[in-house]
C-alpha cells in the first residue's frame, strides 16, 4: 500500500487519542515558515509508522502521533499550539 497524503481532518481520531479532545479546529502555527491555520488543513500521512502532520506550505513536520507504552503520544516538532490545556 502506498503512503498518501490526506487532510489533517482525517487525523482527528489519532489527535483525539493523544490530546484527549477534538483538535482539528485548533489553530497551529508552523515555526519553520509562520503558516497558521487549523490542524484540519495540514497535510496528514496516516500510514507512516504513526500519524505525521506536515505544514501545507513548507512541508515541515508539525506533529507526529505514535503509540507508546500502551498509550498514544504526540511529539510536537515545528509547531506552536495555543497555550493552556493543549
Amino acid at each position: 500500500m502506498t503512503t498518501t497524503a490526506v487532510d489533517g481532518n482525517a487525523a482527528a481520531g489519532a489527535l483525539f487519542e493523544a490530546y484527549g479532545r477534538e483538535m482539528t479546529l485548533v489553530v497551529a502555527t508552523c515555526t519553520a515558515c509562520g503558516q497558521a491555520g487549523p490542524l484540519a488543513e495540514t497535510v496528514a500521512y496516516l500510514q507512516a509508522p504513526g500519524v505525521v502532520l506536515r505544514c501545507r506550505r513548507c512541508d515541515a513536520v508539525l506533529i507526529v502521533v505514535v503509540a507508546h507504552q500502551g498509550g498514544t503520544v504526540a511529539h510536537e516538532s515545528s509547531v506552536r499550539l495555543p497555550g493552556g490545556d493543549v
Partner: protein
Amino acid sequence: MVDLIDESTHVRSVVLDLPDWPGHRAGQHVDVRLTAEDGYQAQRSYSLASSPEDGQVVLTVEVLDDGEVSPYLAGELQVGDQLELRGPIGGYFVWTADLGGPLQLFAGGSGVVPFRAMLRHRAAANGGVPVRLLYSARRLEDVIYRDELGRLAANGETDIRFTLTREWPDPWGGYRRRVDREMVEQVAWSPEDRPLVYVCGPTGFVETVADAMVELGHDQAAIRTERFGPSGG
C-alpha cells in the same frame, strides 16, 4: 451491523445499530478498527453517510482491491457482527443547518458520502438553504445514491450536475470530462453569493476544484476540503 446495502458495483453501505451513539453532525466521520487473531490492527476513517436525524448510523464503503479494511467491511462482515469504532470525530468538514448557505458541494467519487449526510440533514431541517452539487464519477454505474440524488434533483430543490469521466450513456446531458476551472465556473455560485464550499474526493480532484474556486474569487476561508488520497484502504 444490521444491514448491508449495495450502492454500486464497488460500494456498499453498512448500517449499524448503536444504542449508545451520542449523535453526530453531518460531515463527521468514524474510525473503524479491525484486529486480526494475531493482534495485528488496521484502522481507517469513514465518513458518516447518515444524517443526525436518520436514527441509524450508516457508513458507505468503497471496496479497494488492495485495501486492508474495506474488503472486510463490505465483503466479509455479516449482519449481527460487531465492529470496533470510535466517533463521531472531526469538527472541520461539518455543516449544520444553522450555518446557513447557500451550499456549494463538490464530490469526486465516494467523496459524495458526507454530502448525503448534509443533504439529508438539510431536508430534515425543512430545506430552505439552496444547494448546488457537482458530482464527478467515472461512469453512471459508479454514481452512489443515484436514486436518492435523482429524486432530490427532480423536485427542484437541489441543483445537481454530474460529470462522467470515462463512459457515458447515450443520450447524456451532463459533462463528459474531468473537472476543470471552466466547469467549476459554470456550476458554482458566484463569489457574491458567498457560498459555503465543501470539496471531498481524491487529492487531484480536490486541488483542481479548490484552486479554481480561489482563482474565481471565493474566500479561501469559506472553502473546506477533505482529501482521501488516491486510495484509502
